[in-house]
């Protein structure tokens, strides 16, 4: 049977089960993408709703529908064959987005792109990794975003007065520290690791209220630590799972992108230097491919349009939060950096 048909049959079965069990509905938004979520109560699955930043009172009629499940009896064929389960399996085309990852005991996202219905199946719902709780349904959002102007990316963002700075870099580049330092200085926190962006007009939208602090930075952000839901230990890496919505509500979940900055390795002085759009595009694509898989040509086209229309800068590491605040505030206010690349 075709994989697309397998996904569709599974979605029909999930629909039946959700109706029988009268699973509760939640309406949320990722950028302009409205989604009706139906989650079953197994294991840690209900916790996946906690960090989603934008809740809607009711789903619009054209909302996509995602079921989040911990079991799907009779649909073992939807899983990759046993010899393929140790790794990642991806299929992305205009009809279907299918992603299997062997993390958290086995995790599957299946989206029927034609009907905008999908499922996220955690085969071990008691073992859902903290990464998923902090960035719930990221691959499903990606799977639903293909035909629209928005795309989720691996980046941080902070905003002030409706204008945002997008902070791009690989894991460990300092995105979380920069975003939390700005939040402590009064900026709106839109995300430390995953946000939604679009070009024409260039905008960024918050996806999650989460921030994941490394152990060696706990002492730098006492206010954020007050908002921590706990310390997670995924594969020996301790992180504070911060809920930024506990600190203050988000006035506006979207903002215009005033600039893109790419943090540079340690050793360079704090400050900005113009960065070529091509270099910025490469960094954005590389970082995004760390965690968001599939549809690369479409993502490339969207991000290329974004960086072509927005100033891009390399940012020397600012260890002084006041310097960072002032540096990024200059971008929001349209000041042109003077240090050359």
């Amino acid at each position, binding site marked *: *049977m*075709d*994989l697309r048909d*397998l996904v569709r049959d599974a979605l029909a079965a999930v629909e039946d089960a959700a109706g029988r069990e009268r699973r509760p509905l939640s309406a949320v938004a990722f950028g302009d993408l409205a989604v009706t979520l139906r989650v079953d109560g197994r294991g840690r699955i209900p916790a996946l709703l906690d960090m989603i930043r934008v809740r809607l009172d009711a789903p619009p009629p054209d909302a996509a529908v995602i079921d989040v499940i911990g079991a799907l009896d009779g649909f073992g*064929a939807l899983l*990759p*064959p046993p*010899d*393929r389960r140790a*790794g*990642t*399996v*991806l*299929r992305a085309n205009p009809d279907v987005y299918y992603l299997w990852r062997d993390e958290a005991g086995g995790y599957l996202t299946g989206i029927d792109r034609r009907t905008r219905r999908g499922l996220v199946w955690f085969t071990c719902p008691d073992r859902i990794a903290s990464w998923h709780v902090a960035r719930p349904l990221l691959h499903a959002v990606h799977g639903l975003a293909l035909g629209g102007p928005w795309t989720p990316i691996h980046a941080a963002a902070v905003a002030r007065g409706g204008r945002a700075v997008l902070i791009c870099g690989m894991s460990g580049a300092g995105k979380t520290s920069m975003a939390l330092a700005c939040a402590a200085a009064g900026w709106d926190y839109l995300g430390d690791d995953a946000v939604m962006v679009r070009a024409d007009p260039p905008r960024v939208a918050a996806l999650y209220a989460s921030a994941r602090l490394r152990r060696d930075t706990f002492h730098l952000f006492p206010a954020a630590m007050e908002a921590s839901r706990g310390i997670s230990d995924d594969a020996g890496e301790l992180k504070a799972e911060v809920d930024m919505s506990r600190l203050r509500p988000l006035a506006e979940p979207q903002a215009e992108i005033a600039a893109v900055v790419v943090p540079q390795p340690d050793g360079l002085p704090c400050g900005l230097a113009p960065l*070529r*759009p*091509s270099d910025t*595009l*490469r960094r954005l*694509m*590389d970082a995004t*491919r*760390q965690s968001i*898989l*599939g549809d*690369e*040509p479409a993502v*490339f*086209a969207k991000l*290329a349009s974004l960086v*072509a229309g927005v100033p891009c800068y390399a940012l020397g590491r600012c260890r002084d939060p006041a310097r960072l605040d002032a540096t990024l505030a200059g971008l929001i206010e349209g000041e042109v950096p003077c240090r050359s690349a």
Partner: protein
Amino acid sequence: MRYRLSPSPNVSARSFGDEIVAANFVTGVYYSLLGSAMQMWDGLVAGVPCDRVVAQVGALSDAAPEAFAQAARSFVDALVAEKLIVPIEDGTAPAPAWSPVPPAEGRYAVPLLERFDDMEDLLLLDPVHDVEEMGWPHADPSRA
């Protein structure tokens, strides 16, 4: 010989005015084309015969004609080897009107294909497997 952009859905290119960025998403390699390389790319993917592209861009270069032609051949070979462009039959279609843009100042250097392969290791660590249209369990051998 004429060429065109690879028909592969896994190859994309974008112009930023003074630079073209191309990407092959199967290998995770990105490419930067500046100066004469960008002009040659423009002519090649427009379907202009390669000899004409080399002659016209070479006329804007400070390199000796033979040196430029040799570098241009290597450049085109590299584009083909990296699967960014593919040869097409000359056929009977007339060659499109095209002329390279002269440099803003000075003259062009020989064309170079700048290659960024920092994603290759990451892809090897986190392999992405495509499957054939009919689903499991057939790995698509063309992606191997």
